[in-house]
């Protein structure tokens, strides 16, 4: 049996204080670009990647990703091609791969077929932005039986009781959204993010991935010792659109420096 998402992360965390999680929208700007991005992620030392399957109603996404979803679909992106991309990503990046998206993609193809295909491309799990644990118990349970993790999201604006309830059903890692709102908006990294991460640590032993608004080495430096992973989404896509694969690899490298200096500044 291959190792689970949590096991892979624990192994990586043994030699690195903060892992870097990257994101891409499949088919945006194009599948060729996605491959260049994946190469840049490998060069830049990215530890795990979420591959977003574009959906026509991306309600959890801010303007940059919402438009990327739409453009990918306008360019003819099909679900089958997203799985193919994951299979190719498997050969480019050593770290775990996660499918990210919205639950209609899963329900429309059928939970069984979805999990089968996900396992076939070697994914470690999936994140569905609009499937709360209480409505996805069946899917999340079946995934676990196949050795895959249904990753759940926690946000700062829920009660401790709710956080505990979500944490109880979470597998692999806890995706911590740094603030209210959608992806791509600004986040103030400070005491409230720290408090939130501490709350999450109190309700779950799983590695914490903090996302939403991580843009700069200073943000990553701030997170070292407070979370186990930093998720970089919108800022990376903007970097790629401005400067291509080379700029993106540099961007991830600078973030890695943030991981290192984070220890010294603290």
């Amino acid at each position: 049996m291959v190792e689970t998402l949590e096991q892979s992360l624990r192994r990586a965390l043994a030699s690195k204080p903060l892992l870097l999680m990257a994101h891409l929208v499949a088919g945006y700007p194009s599948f060729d670009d996605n491959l260049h991005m994946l190469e840049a992620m490998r060069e830049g030392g990215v530890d795990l990647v979420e591959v977003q399957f574009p959906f026509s109603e991306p309600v959890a996404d801010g303007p940059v990703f919402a438009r990327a979803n739409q453009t990918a679909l306008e360019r003819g992106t099909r679900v089958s091609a997203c799985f193919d991309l994951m299979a190719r990503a498997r050969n480019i990046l050593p770290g775990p791969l996660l499918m990210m998206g919205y639950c209609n993609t899963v329900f429309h193809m059928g939970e069984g077929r979805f999990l089968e295909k996900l396992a076939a491309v070697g994914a470690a799990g999936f994140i569905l932005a609009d499937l709360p644990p209480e409505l996805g118990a069946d899917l999340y349970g079946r995934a676990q039986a196949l050795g895959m993790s249904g990753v759940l999201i926690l946000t700062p604006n829920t009660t401790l009781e709710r956080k505990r309830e979500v944490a109880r059903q979470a597998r692999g890692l806890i995706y911590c959204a740094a603030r209210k709102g959608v992806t791509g908006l600004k986040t103030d990294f400070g005491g409230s993010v720290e408090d939130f991460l501490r709350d999450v640590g109190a309700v779950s032993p799983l590695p914490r991935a903090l996302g939403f608004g991580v843009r700069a080495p200073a943000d990553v430096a701030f997170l070292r010792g407070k979370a186990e992973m930093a998720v970089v989404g919108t800022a990376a896509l903007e970097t790629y659109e401005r400067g291509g694969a080379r700029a993106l690899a540099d961007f991830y490298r600078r973030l890695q420096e943030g991981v290192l200096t984070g220890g010294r500044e603290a």
Partner: protein
Amino acid sequence: MNLFSSRSGRYGPYGGAYIPEVLHSCIAELTAAFYAAKDDPAFWAEYVTLMARYSCRPTPITPLDNISRHLGGARLLAKREDLNHTGSHKLNNVMGQGLLALRMGKKRVIAETGAGQHGVATATMAARFGLRCKIYMGEEDVQRQRPNVFWMERLGAEVEPVRLGSRTLKDAINECLRDWSHSMDDTHYVLGTVCGPHPFPEMVSYFQSIVGQEARTQLLELEGGLPQRVYACVGGGSNAMGIFQGFLDDPVELVGVEAGGKGLKSGRHASRIASGEGSVGVAGYRSYFLQDADGQMVDTHSVAAGLDYVGVSPILAYLADSGRVRFTAAEDGEVIEALKLTMRLEGLIPALESAHAFAAAYREARQLKSGERVLISMSGRGDKDIFTVAEALGDASWLEYLKRKAGG
């Protein structure tokens, strides 16, 4: 039939709240506030009084004597939601949610709008209740419904055109959810129809049930009996749920009329149920949607912006499956004909949305015996549609007028 006894937001396999975790707390807060209000008899009384003083409730039922004679067959009657303040049934839901927003201490409201009716109603409520207001409207609808944009802005609302997706109602709903996911502390989202995550389908049904309650009482009083059939157009389904709830336990056939657009075989319609082309999906709630082979929501079409929506109420999906509500569709062309006939013979101007219900009722009126009653939900008035209708009718002097105005 009590659809809402479980308070679970589930209607057979449909409904639910498929939302990002960030919305969990505000949906929970809203659900608790709604049930507290529903359990408080003073709340409904306050609502009914407000609607009597501020709007035009109870709205009358008008027998369509001339058309009934013209068609031969059933006795047609219209429930006059067009006589509400702001011109449609949308105000019922909006004033109810406004009272709830005040109870929750909210200072700001947001809403999506398609035809603009729900947006105008929300802007009106916000002005009356002293709330800040922002309306999201698909860019395509902003073009189609310019007069309503004018009124929303004059009423003090900010109108934001939505340029994402198909630039229609569904995209405006998505944009509201995005706004709400960071503004929830001081903001209530006034969803305009019986769709979306729980508790919206139940809550909007609750406020709209005033229509069916009145209609049933009025018919028994005025006509001494129930109708054989009730027709309502179905966008998201709020005017239909409103009027149907008065007759769910009666031997009355309930007919939902969807937008047939350019025809159910044309691929240019918004019929999720009658066309047989809809399939079960999830976009905030589980119901029938028009989607492609990958589960992407597709573009819809209707001459009526308020029916141009890709999903349908989970409650109506359930009632359709169980056979309690029959679904049919009316195409753009027959809708315009029904509108013309209603104007000429009755002096009534239904909204293009409502004209779908009239069209289906006219088409089927001869199936009924003379004297059998048909109740039509006249959900709104058509003045807002002057540009669309004038274009559909090819009114030359109106076009001339527009040119003159634009030149001046």
